[in-house]
């Protein structure tokens, strides 16, 4: 100790110490006060909040999944079923090394990187520790066995079974009933989380979507006390059983659906068949189709991309969503408009040279059999012949005479330009042009040439196959309106918010007779070359019942003026769409349909045989006739 000796000032030192220890004790009291204040805040001020949290911890509300309602066709065949599906789940807290476990599972049953990614997303959304999270769905028997055998080596890995939607008819019914999908984040924002707490899936398309509330059922609850590991302590505190969803019966007839699908074969197209007595949709086929089961538990990206990007757009429902020009199938409706308004007379005939020109306009509107040589045309044509020979020039003239306003008014009565379908949520409304529409969307006035085109179903007018089929059903009913619908029985369908049509009145019987008679001749008239119905040669020769029909051909590419086109030169995808609409039997119609063959060529030649196949199946099969009548009786009750 080198420093100078300083004697300690003991009394001063203990004075300082006394001050300090008192200050220190004061500080200590302050800290105590802080703790007391904190405890007071947590235990008294926030008591209710933490009591609730504590109860939420302790009491687990377990949701009990309701069984989704089944969907049957009119004959009781199952269209949508629920089957148990095994899934592999991982409970993170029980796993030593998550990545190692996933690698081990991958070696065992194969797990793709995208599946791992979705698994991690689900893991991050977990509500509580010890909640198991699925990593692989729909195990095969073999995968199930492999995992079960090796489970002991992988703590935390379990195989769980859950009921999932299954569509036994796979592709056949995909576009008719739609499908469920896993609830995604967008859905989660929209739906009531409580209603869906026992459910992983939601109806995304079609019937499954429209009747979601009916099919879903009501979730049940069981309140149990659990510990932090999710282990249930003792008996449930209380329980509310789930209520299964309502089963639905559809008008669809699986046999007819199959027949329509077979008739289309591998071609792209659609068939919509309606029972005109009820509006029930008997068949709704859109090809190509897809297997909706792929989507139920999550489709892998590659498969999805190949479906989505296919040039044939199999995911697209051509029957309800695709809009085409109706072509000549519009003619019976234009003709009816002419008769009702007095602009056309049954006995009035024109001389068809094969072309039509508006006054003061050089544009040439050709008939379908026009030739450069000038040898085309249908000769003397009245309305009857204009329909069964599908004479364009007659309708060019009639449309010009009617003007767009009358056409718009009367075609609206048949549902053109309006979506009338009740339970087909994806259905589109087509387009029935008018002056207002053209001014509104194109900012152009209506030209007389526009009307000329509408007269033969070309130009701006667009229809969906479903829409055309229901217009034909109204025609078959001689004006009694039916609303196209899938549902036959099961629940009260929600009334559509859509525009309802009134029955087409003020049309005298002789007008119906003429129009329907002319459509009958399309199929049955056999009076020699140039006088036969346009479809007679293809379907009328050996037909065993009376069918009314009309062919149509919708242009895909406009043909330049004065050019006789050569089908061979056109790319297959630019070829015209073939239409055929029909109903039968003529005196007591039980089925009305619309067939569309994409890039199929001429309607009579290519589309009418499909219509004939479908009608043959339906009308010549006694069993189905009986079933159909039964269904109509059920519907009327």
């Amino acid at each position, binding site marked *: 100790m080198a420093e100078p000796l300083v004697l300690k000032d*003991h009394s001063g030192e203990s004075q300082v110490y*006394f001050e*300090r220890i008192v200050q*220190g004790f004061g500080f200590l009291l302050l800290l105590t006060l802080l703790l007391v204040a904190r*405890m007071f805040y947590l*235990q*008294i001020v926030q*008591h209710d909040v933490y009591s609730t949290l504590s109860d939420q911890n302790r009491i687990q509300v377990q949701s009990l999944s309701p069984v989704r309602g089944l969907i049957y066709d009119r004959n009781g065949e199952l269209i949508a079923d629920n089957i148990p599906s095994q899934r592999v789940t991982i409970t993170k807290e029980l796993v030593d090394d998550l990545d190692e476990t996933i690698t081990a599972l991958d070696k065992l049953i194969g797990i793709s990187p995208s599946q791992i990614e979705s698994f991690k997303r689900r893991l991050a959304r977990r509500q509580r520790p010890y909640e198991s999270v699925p990593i692989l769905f729909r195990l095969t028997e073999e995968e199930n066995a492999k995992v079960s055998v090796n489970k002991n080596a992988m703590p935390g890995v379990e195989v769980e079974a859950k009921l999932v939607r299954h569509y036994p008819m796979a592709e056949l019914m995909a576009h008719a009933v739609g499908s469920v999908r896993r609830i995604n984040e967008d859905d989660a924002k929209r739906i009531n989380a409580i209603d869906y707490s026992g459910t992983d899936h939601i109806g995304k398309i079609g019937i499954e979507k429209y009747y979601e509330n009916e099919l879903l059922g009501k979730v049940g609850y069981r309140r149990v006390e659990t510990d*932090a590991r999710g282990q249930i302590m003792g008996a449930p505190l209380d329980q509310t059983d789930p209520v299964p969803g309502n089963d639905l019966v559809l008008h669809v007839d699986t046999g007819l659906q199959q027949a329509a699908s077979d008739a289309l074969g591998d071609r792209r197209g659609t068939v919509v068949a309606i029972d005109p007595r009820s509006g029930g949709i008997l068949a709704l086929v859109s090809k190509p189709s897809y297997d909706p089961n792929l989507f139920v538990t999550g489709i892998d990206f590659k498969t999805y991309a190949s479906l989505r990007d296919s040039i044939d757009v199999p995911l697209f429902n051509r029957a309800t969503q695709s809009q085409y020009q109706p072509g000549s199938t519009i003619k019976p409706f234009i003709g009816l408009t002419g008769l009702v308004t007095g602009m056309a007379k049954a006995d009035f005939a024109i001389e068809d040279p094969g072309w039509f020109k508006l006054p003061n306009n050089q544009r040439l509107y050709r008939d379908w059999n026009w030739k450069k040589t000038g040898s085309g045309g249908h000769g003397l044509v009245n309305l009857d012949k204009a329909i069964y020979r599908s004479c364009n020039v007659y309708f060019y003239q009639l449309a010009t005479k009617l003007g767009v306003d009358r056409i718009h008014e009367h075609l609206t009565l048949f549902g053109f330009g309006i979506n009338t379908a009740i339970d087909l949520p994806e259905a589109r409304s087509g387009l029935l042009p008018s002056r207002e529409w053209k001014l509104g969307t194109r900012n152009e006035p209506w030209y007389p040439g526009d009307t000329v085109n509408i007269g033969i179903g070309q130009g701006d007018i667009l229809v969906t196959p479903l829409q055309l089929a229901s217009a034909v059903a109204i025609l078959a009913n001689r004006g009694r309106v039916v609303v196209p619908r899938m549902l036959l029985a099961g629940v009260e369908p929600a009334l559509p918010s859509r525009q309802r049509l009134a029955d087409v009145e003020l049309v005298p019987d002789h007008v119906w007779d003429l129009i329907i008679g002319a459509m009958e001749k399309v199929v049955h008239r056999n009076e020699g070359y140039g006088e036969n119905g346009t479809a007679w040669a293809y379907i009328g020769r050996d037909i065993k019942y009376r069918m009314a029909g009309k062919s149509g051909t919708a242009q895909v590419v406009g043909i330049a003026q004065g050019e006789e086109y050569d089908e061979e030169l056109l790319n297959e995808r630019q070829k015209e769409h073939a239409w055929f609409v029909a109903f039968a039997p003529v005196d007591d119609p039980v089925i009305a349909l619309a067939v569309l063959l994409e890039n199929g060529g001429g309607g009579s030649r290519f589309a009418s045989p499909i219509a004939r196949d479908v009608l043959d199946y339906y009308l010549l099969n006694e069993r189905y006739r009986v079933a159909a009548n039964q269904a109509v009786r059920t519907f009327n009750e």
Partner: protein
Amino acid sequence: MSEDFVRRLPDAGFAYRVRDSGSSVFHLDVQMILLLVAIASYGLLILYSAVGQESAPVTAQSAKIGIAFVIMVAMAQISPIFYLRIAPWVFLIGVIMLVLVMFFGTTVNGSQRWLRIPGIFSFQPSEIMKLMVPMILAWYFHDRHLPPRMKHLFWAAVMIAVPVLLIARQPDLGTALIVGASGLLVLFLAGISWRYMVTVIGAAVVSSPALWFVLRDYQQGRILTFLNPERDPLGDGWNIIQSKTAIGSGGLFGKGLGEGTQSHLEFLPESQTDFIIAVLAEELGLVGVMGLLILYLLIAGRGVMISIQAQDTFGRLLAGSITFTFFIYVFVNIGMVSGIVPVVGVPLPLVSYGGTSIITLFAGFGIIMSIYSHRRITL
């Protein structure tokens, strides 16, 4: 050395003698013992509930308390003069053991804290430092002019920094902070000027962002979680969310002993050790917590009284800093469980399950009693 010591005493020539009263025949302080017994019993009661009303852990803990009590009684018999004499040597041995831990220590849960002599015993040298740092500083200031000068403060800072850094390296941040705090408390009681204190605290606050980068990931995580427990509610934030839920759901009178759902359904982690106060708060409510806090305050008050009555610098500083360190434990533990202090592994004194901290605490009270009972009688 003892000659110097005696020479500088104002009343040189008088020896320490046992205070001539019945309570101190065995060098014990009856009031302190009653308070310690009360709090230990209270602690055992809570522990009994926290372990799910099994008697085995309670018996084991009682045995540890018994051993600690014997150690306390033994420590109380030793004269403060002896502690003063051996202080530098024990401190030196402590530091050497900390260095040995660095090289030969056993690693448990990622930190190297234990010194193990196979088959004989294992212990944490850092635990000794909780007593040795105050003791070495009290020794250092004992024969120096107070308030301490700059030069003395420098050496005092070295005496604090060496063990603190060695402990922080293990890593055991909680213990390092407590040890550092116990040393700083001696400086405070020694009368270090407020100016220095404000400077040191200011420097600590300013440099704290830089300290961030020294912290290990899990330590950074704890601080982030402290600031926002919802950051990772199922991971880092789980403990604090669950402990706050346990405390808050207790309310004024609690859910009743043995009725706490948070602890018994295992939502509350570490419910028998560091987080045991949450069990108390859940089952006995604010009233139960206040009772415990009052007991702690009474013990601290008794310690303060003893330190004031102590008649030399060594006794004063040692008794005062041990008492305050004890209370810092209480504050840090309850503060961390209730979410006003980041989570550091500090047990609740005399209540948390476990032997090491209890033995250190009772040893500390033994020293306080020694200081109390070996006062000179002025004739």
